[in-house]
Structure formats: structure tokens, C-alpha cells
């Protein structure tokens, strides 16, 4: 099985540790992962702001970079959702039959990390160790667009040393929403403040989620509030072991 890592533009530029954690984790599970260097972005920022023409060359770059792989794995529910549900819309808009065909190849092969682990590899115990009190925020696109269900929870429950606490109103949006966070900053911040309050109420030391973009927003509010709660991508918890230690 040829497996490609789609690291996402946000992780590439802002959260490289998450990409490294996915590589570490998959190697430990016996999966050799490629990083096609031609990859850039899934084009979701353009699509969700209404810039469909601008999304076309980005989607073209995506399908060129990932052509021929059996699985495209990404540590982002939102970007996986974009590849699976929006690339077809962009390709249709381009009027390019070749792009429509290429998208039909790559879209169904794109997996969010927990889907790949649980459904394709069939594992829930990935041998991780993380001795902290953790609460999990199910990000909207992983929850409602992809339907990852309780896969992240199944994986977290098998982590040695972890203490999972419940997040009140967990399924409510954190208010990030891509350009919504800036275009409707006041509403976004009001939603983020409520999410941060619930995170504090959970009593967790670490907030974990499958999307760093949402975590950047919630974490930004938690930091401004001097809450002392750390945010981490799920991949980094799953990658950490007793031997290698917990990532800094």
C-alpha cells in the first residue's frame, strides 16, 4: 500500500510537529509514508470564502501531487472533508473533464488520520503513553462532514496513563470557521470564549483535537485568558511513548 501524508498548509507552515508526529506514529505501526513535495493546500480557504476560480489551480496541484497513491492521510478533519466533499464542486466549476476525473480518483482515497488508523489499519491501541488529564474537542468537520464518530475516543482510551475528562457542550462549534474567524471576529470570539470556558470546566491540562486550525483559535483564547491549558493535536498524543517521551 502506497501511503502519502497530506500534511496540510496550516500544519506545514505553523505546526510541523503534528506532521512529524504522524510520520512517527505511522512508522511505529509499520506504515512507510511518503511526503509528496509538490503538495500545497486542499483549497478549502478559497472555496469556503467563495473564491472558486482561485481554488481551481490549487485543487489541480493537489491531484497532481497525490496521483497514484492508495491512501492519502491527513491530520485534519477539515482538510479531509474539503478533499472529499468540495474538490468535486471545484472540478465541476473548472469545466475540465480531466480534473473531474482526477478528483474522482483522489477524493475517496483521502482519510482523516483516525479513520485511517481505525478503518484501514484496524488499530485502536497504537502503543501510546501520555500521563496527563486530557479533554477531547470533536471538531465540526470531522464530526459532521466526515462522521468520524467515536474513532478518536477509541484511540485515546487506549493511551497508557491518560485521564480523559468530559468536555461540556463538546459538539458545539468553537467559532473558528476559517475566514469566519476574521470576517465575523466578534461572533467567533464569543463562541471561542464559551468553548474555552467549557475547556476550563473540564479540569483538563490538555485540550486535544484533530484540527490544528480550531486548536489555534481555542488555544489563542485560552492563552490570552492565562488559563494554563495547553492545546495539542491528537497525532502528537498518539505518537508519544514512554521511551521517546512526550513531545515538547
Amino acid at each position, binding site marked *: 500500500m502506497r501511503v502519502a501524508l497530506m500534511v496540510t498548509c496550516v500544519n506545514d507552515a505553523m505546526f510541523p510537529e503534528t506532521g512529524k508526529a504522524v510520520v512517527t506514529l505511522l512508522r511505529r505501526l509499520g506504515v512507510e509514508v511518503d511526503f509528496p513535495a509538490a503538495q500545497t493546500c486542499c483549497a478549502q480557504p478559497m472555496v469556503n470564502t467563495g473564491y472558486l476560480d482561485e481554488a481551481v489551480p490549487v485543487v489541480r496541484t493537489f491531484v497532481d501531487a497525490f496521483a497514484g497513491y492508495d491512501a492519502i492521510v491527513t491530520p485534519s478533519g477539515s482538510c479531509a472533508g474539503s478533499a472529499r466533499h468540495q474538490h468535486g464542486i471545484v472540478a465541476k466549476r473548472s469545466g475540465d473533464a480531466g480534473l473531474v476525473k482526477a478528483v474522482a480518483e483522489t477524493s475517496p482515497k483521502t482519510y482523516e488520520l483516525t479513520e485511517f488508523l481505525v478503518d484501514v489499519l484496524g488499530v485502536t491501541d497504537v502503543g501510546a503513553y501520555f500521563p496527563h488529564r486530557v479533554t477531547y474537542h470533536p471538531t465540526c468537520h470531522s464530526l459532521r462532514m466526515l462522521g468520524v464518530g467515536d474513532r478518536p475516543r477509541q484511540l485515546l482510551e487506549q493511551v497508557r496513563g491518560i485521564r480523559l475528562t468530559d468536555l461540556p457542550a463538546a459538539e*458545539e462549534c468553537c467559532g473558528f470557521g476559517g475566514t469566519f474567524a476574521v470576517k465575523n471576529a466578534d461572533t467567533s470570539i464569543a463562541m471561542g470564549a464559551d468553548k474555552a470556558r467549557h475547556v476550563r470546566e473540564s479540569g483538563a491540562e490538555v485540550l486535544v483535537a484533530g484540527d490544528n486550525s480550531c486548536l489555534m483559535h481555542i488555544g489563542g483564547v485560552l492563552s490570552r485568558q492565562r488559563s494554563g491549558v495547553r492545546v495539542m493535536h491528537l497525532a502528537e498524543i498518539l505518537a508519544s511513548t514512554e521511551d521517546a517521551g512526550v513531545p515538547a
Partner: protein
Amino acid sequence: MSGTFVGMPAFPSAAKAALGDTQLRHNLAHATGVIRAKRAKLVEEVEENLGWEDLRLAGAAVKDRALRDLGDNLEQLEAALTAAGATVHWARDAAEANAVVIEVAKRHQVDEVVKVKSMVTGEIGLNEALEAEGIAAWETDLAEIIVQLGHDLPSHILVPAIHRNRAEIREIFLREMGKVGRPAPADLTDEPAALAAAAREHLREKFLRAKVAVSGANFAVADSGTLVVVESEGNGRMCLTLPEVLVSVVGIEKVVPTWAELDPLLRLLPRSSTGERMNPYTSTWTGVTPGDGPQEVHVVLLDNGRTRALADEVGRQALRCIRCSACLNVCPVYERAGGHAYGSVYPGPIGAILNPLLKGTGDAQTDSLPYASSLCGACFEACPVRIDIPEVLVHLRAQVVDGHREDTVPKLEAVAFKGAAYALSDAKRLTLAEKGSGLAGRVLSRFGRTTLPGGRKAAGRIPGPGAAKWTSARDLPAPPAESFRAWWKRTDGGKDGG
């Protein structure tokens, strides 16, 4: 605020004002929370018996059938209504619909009408049109009375006064009822039962006096010519049965092909709206029944942008809407910004798509609506007729952007996205951009004063478009010195030591 949504600012600034109203935030969070919980319990109950998803699919299918053959269904409805003694009027827009109601009222020489709660008469501004002709329109739905007496605007589809709490309602009743009819008792308390009793006394004299009533309809059955109104209080039924003349304004998308097809819709609607298995009052009437109820019945079939929405291949699904308001009650944006921020009688997620679909995009207020969403998808999940609201929102955002493609001076945002598309369609260009952000990151890591839990440096408040809005309440992590792709290249994917 009073009486009109005309001239409302775009969503972000209207929402900003609402976010500062702590009473509003509290009222909305409480009320939507209560309805959400009631609905969830009943959905679970249906799920155990016959399957909620199957019922949603059945409801959506009925509305799709109705819309696919809309022309035929409407002609059948007209024929059935006419055969049953009703007079059918066709209205292309608000002005034509209002003119019909005014003409009927004037012919009967009345200076007042009583009204059943209806969204569509709010959409066409009927009350204001009647008032301009010296005809008072009395709202009779409890929540609508609160809005009308408070010189306020509706903020919710089902519960137009959801933004008011009972203490505020008591004050409005005491202050305003006496000006337009029977006053509220001087010792009125804020107990719900006492407030309802005051409204009942106030309304009773209006019901007994009125010669003409105006209603909308939840459904219009084509094969039988039957209109259906679903309500909780019985005030609607008073309007529908006591006056001699009844005028019903009905959007053309309300048509349902057959009586039997009402079945899934009447099961979906109360569960999704009030969180009840069945609503207390479902009134159905077919034209004129001699000697019983109104003896002169008019039905105004209104387009007002519906055929425009129908022509939109992605957007037409919004016409399936049965106005239950489940999407409002689950929407995190609505819960915080409130209904007024949407500048329409149709607020919330459905309003964010319905208003642009009915009116067309192009003005700043309408164009702001498709962006009034974080695209969290809770609305689609809750919608009883499976309207994929996030899909339509994104589709309408593209319409908004496309409407500005010929601008001589492009918006800053458009320039930014052109630049982003350029950088993101070639990995070499992206690598270059990341080198720049890595440099910024190194500077920030050295001099930044904010440290995130875990040790990473972050930026506090920084200026610039976008950045200032982000950092007004959120710290921004410093970019890493090395991007993932640079690390991968340097270490051969971590094999040469990470």
C-alpha cells in the same frame, strides 16, 4: 428598534451590537437550550420506533415532488380552491400581495384586521402597508403581540419574542396594552399564566369585533384545495373561524401535492419546532363551508423571489423549508448574535440562505448573510427536510464573490485570495513564503513576550488587516523556524535524525 428591517447594517456590525447585550445573550442561550433538549428527546424516540432519518427523507421527498411539478401543483390547487368557493389571487411580489389584502379590507369598509401569526406577511411588510391605508393589523399570536406592543422586530421564526424574558414582557403589557385596547390588570405579575391571561382578555375583544382576518398557511394541499395552519395557542383558530372574511397569503412553495403527503410533514414539524409529538392546534379549511366559519375566503399565492430561488440548482432545496426553526435553535452563531442581526423576518441559518436566494445577492447586507456562519453543520444535521445549509452557504458565497469579479477596484480580500491561489498552486512558491514566515517566527521567538503553555512563543496584539482582528482576543503562535517540508527535506523524512 421598531417596525422595520429596512436599512439594517451588515451582519458583522449588527452582531457586534447584539453580542454586547448580556440580557439578550442570557435569554437566547436559555430559550434555545430548552427547545434543543426537548427536540433531541423526541428525535431519539422516533429513532427507536421508525427511524428519524427515514422520516426526514420522506419529508424532503414530498417537498421535492411539490417543487418539481410546482406549476401543475399550483394550477391544481387553484382549481380545487375555486371549486370550494375560494377566490384565488396570484401575486408576483409584495406590492401585489399587499394590494389584494388592502382591496378586500376596503371593500368591507373595515379599519382593522386580526392576524394569525405568519412569516410571509412579515416578509411582504403587510402590517405597514395596511397601516399606510389607515387599517390596523392586530397580531394575535402571543409572541407576535409582545413584538408588536413592544414596537420591536421578530427575532425567531417560531418564537418571535425569544429575545425577551418574562419580566420584560410584563413591562411591555403594562405599558402598551391600554393604548390599543383592553389594558393589562394593574397587579399583573410576570408569571407565565398571568401574562397569558392578560393577553387572552386583551385579544378576546378584538376577535369578537373583527370582520376580516389575515393568515398565512403552513401547507396548501393541491388535490383537495385545503390550507393548513399549525399552532400552539388556539388564537390562530379564533382568527380562522370567527371573522366573516378570511384572506390567506401563501408562498407558492407551501404547496403539497396530496392530502396523504401531509403525513411526514405534520410529524416532522412539531417535533422539530416546539419539541412536541403533536402541536395543540392544527386547523384545516377548504374554501367556504356554508353557514360555518368565514363566508368569503381569499387565497393569495405569492412568488416574491421564490421562482428565482427555484431556478438556482443548488439553492432550490431551501424551498423545502417548513419554517420549524430547528436550525436556529442549534446554531451557535444565532444563539450569540440573535435574530435581529440577520435583518429579516427569516433569521438564523435558513435566513442566511433564504434571503439571498429570494432577493438575489448584490447589496452589502444581503451579501453578508452567507458569511454569517462558521459552517459547523449543526443546522443540516437538525433540518427535518434535509436542507444542506452549509452547501448552499458556500454556493452563495461564490455568487457574492462572482458578483464583484468585474469591479474596477478589487476588494483587498480578492487581491489577497488571488495572491494565496498563486502561492498555493506551486510548492516552490509556498516554500518561499514559508521561509518568510519562518524568519518572522525566529524574530518572535527571540523577542516575543507571550509564551503558550508548552513553551512556544506567541504574538499578542498585532496590527494589520486580519491580524488585528485575530489577535484582539486570541494569541497567535509564533511561526516555527522550520516548516514541515523543510524538515522533511533536511532530514530525509526524519531518517537522518529529526
